[in-house]
């Protein structure tokens, strides 16, 4: 009987430890938006995708502010996401096998840059985020939050971010930081 009690206590301790070891954030390794209609790709785009060993197939995730967000590829190789503006023939795209994951819940497609010797900053903000990412925040070089934008349907898109934004920080529904670009 005493041995049984010890085993029960040990099992309870193991279960408690496992529960505590579970990641605090949920939904960071999942994307609910699997894409809607397929979109046609230009010949140049298909060539580029084949060169990247990605099936030349695209499903629309969202259209925001004139930008089309797509998930590219086929079964077993669909960890590529792209965006294009207006009637552009090509998608700029990024492939990342480790997205979405708790370590990498955001696949950022934003443009960063600088002009005429000025500091590097966010030119436009756009990307794909896991279900557990609720908001993105724009942060200046000193760490001050300049503005926020919500993530909807796993996509965020801000064509005119606040002036002086140097980083994009991804937050969960509790306001906790889950990723930042750049780190």
């Amino acid at each position: 009987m005493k041995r049984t009690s010890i085993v029960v206590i040990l099992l309870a301790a193991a279960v408690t430890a496992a529960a505590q070891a579970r990641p605090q954030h949920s939904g960071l390794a999942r994307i609910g938006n699997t894409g809607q209609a397929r979109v046609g790709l230009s010949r140049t785009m298909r060539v580029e995708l084949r060169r990247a060993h990605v099936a030349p197939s695209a499903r629309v995730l969202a259209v925001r502010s004139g930008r089309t967000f797509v998930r590219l590829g086929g079964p077993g190789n669909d960890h590529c996401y792209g965006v294009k503006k207006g009637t552009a023939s090509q998608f700029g795209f990024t492939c990342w096998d480790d997205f979405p994951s708790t370590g990498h819940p955001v696949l950022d497609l934003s443009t960063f840059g600088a002009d005429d010797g000025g500091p590097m900053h966010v030119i436009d903000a756009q990307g794909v985020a896991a279900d557990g990412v609720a908001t993105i925040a724009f942060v200046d070089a000193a760490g001050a939050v300049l503005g926020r934008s919500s993530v909807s349907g796993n996509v965020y898109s801000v064509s005119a971010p606040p002036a002086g934004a140097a980083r994009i920080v991804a937050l969960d529904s509790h306001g906790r930081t889950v990723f930042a670009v750049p780190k």
Partner: protein
Amino acid sequence: MRRLTALVAVVAALLAPNVAAATNWEHYGWVPNGYDPQCLWYPTYGQCSGWNWWVLNDGHVYSGGPALTGFENANTIRGRWTYAGQYAYTHPSDFGMPAYVRAQITNYSGTPAWVDSWAGA
């Protein structure tokens, strides 16, 4: 037969300039990787191509970083932050830049990155 030979010569002449014009640039190794005078913006942190009508810069970060994959000219630098394990396929048009630019990959994150940046024109 003579007409066929002439036709083949004309076709070959038409194709030849395209083949000769196709060019590429590649940096496979570390960034930062010492001073690169080809870089107009961050010569101590980046690796850059010469001037060309670049169509694509395919930046792959194997480890470290992140690194900024994109393009630059004298007035402007643009790119996308690319993390370890990522492949970023960027075009000058993605950033609203003219096509006559330098391809660049830059890393001032403080963590050296092992990368392969390949640009095609």
